[in-house]
């Protein structure tokens, strides 16, 4: 009975949504509200106003930088939530392999991973640093870095991964992204502008573009490093299973 009602509800929702679709502005129309309003300034002035060739990066870090600050806080919240639910790994305990298989990963997997890892790390750095020109940016770079660490953990085991990125390093860097945002924001305040302003009125005009580039890079780097660390910590919290005396709550 409940099933029928739910199915009818979803069917009705689908029909209503499709009716809605047919009354929305035509897709791809240059005259639709989304392509007509607000967007001109981003497309025409972003390069000059934000100093980035990639307009999306300009929107993410400059025009809507505050959203991005919120976004990095969301992943930090995700980490804090995971830790609040599952707890941090305890020092001195041994981690099992994620699949709890008694068979260790084969030499092929290990050597292939070992071969790939430096390139993954290099590519992630490139993505972070080159984000203002090509598609990319701090977050994507951080995600690539974290994916590299996941590969490492899958091939060599969580235990080794947890030693390679020691907890103390992770504790220090996890909050990096919101903190760099805050520092750059406060720099904006001190420089006589608004929070998260990259062009600071109190700095001489000649230095401003250079300062803006450095602040942008700082934020990108913070997002990359913080994001990567958060992903790794989440992996450690989710995948770890303490060997000996599992905690039956």
């Amino acid at each position, binding site marked *: 009975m409940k099933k029928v009602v739910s199915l009818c509800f979803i069917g009705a929702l689908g029909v209503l949504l499709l009716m809605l679709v047919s009354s929305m502005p035509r897709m791809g129309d240059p005259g639709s509200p989304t392509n007509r309003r607000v967007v001109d300034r981003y497309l025409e002035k*972003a390069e000059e106003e934000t100093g980035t060739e990639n307009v999306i990066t300009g*929107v993410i870090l400059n025009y809507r930088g505050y959203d991005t600050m919120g976004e990095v806080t969301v992943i930090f919240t995700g980490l804090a939530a995971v830790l609040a639910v599952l707890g941090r790994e305890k020092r001195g305990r041994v981690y099992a392999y994620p699949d709890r298989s008694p068979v260790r990963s084969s030499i092929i997997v290990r050597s292939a991973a070992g071969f790939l890892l430096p390139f993954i790390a290099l590519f992630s750095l490139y993505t972070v640093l080159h984000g203002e020109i090509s598609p990319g940016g701090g977050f994507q770079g951080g995600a690539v870095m974290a994916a590299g660490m996941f590969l490492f953990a899958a091939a060599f085991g969580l235990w080794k991964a947890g030693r390679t990125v020691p907890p103390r390093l992770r504790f220090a860097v996890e909050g990096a992204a919101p903190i760099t945002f805050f520092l750059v924001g406060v720099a904006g305040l001190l420089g006589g502008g608004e929070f998260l302003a990259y062009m600071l009125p109190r700095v001489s005009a000649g230095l401003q573009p250079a300062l803006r580039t450095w602040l942008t890079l700082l934020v990108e780097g913070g997002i990359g490093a913080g994001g990567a660390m958060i992903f790794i910590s989440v992996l450690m919290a989710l995948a770890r299973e303490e060997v000996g005396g599992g905690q039956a709550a």
Partner: protein
Amino acid sequence: MGRLLDNYHYAVAAVLFCTGFYSVIMRPNIIKKIIGLNIMETSVFLLLVSLGWKEGGIAPIHAGGAEAASMVNPLPQALILTGIVVAVSTTAVALSLVILLYRQYGTLDVDRLMREEELEVPAAGPEGGEG
């Protein structure tokens, strides 16, 4: 129904939204519910990113003397980047809760989970229910 075919991206998004919603409310398995959540989220991202599309549009990157007039709207792309991060974080929190739920109740079936009193704690603890 005039624009339904023109707006086919939106239509696909609507269908995906319902698919995800179906999975969230109908599937008893928790993991499938979480997958459903992600499908719902993706459908909204598809809708958003299609909103910024323009016929014959190019990526909004100024390198190589690209013309501003033909670029697509960068704003929705920036928005869904935020949205994706939100989705990832929600999934991480959901999965951590699932791990704890499975350790404590030994089941991933929502109907069994919500019938609390009859359930017994799995004796084996986290090791219970191998595979």
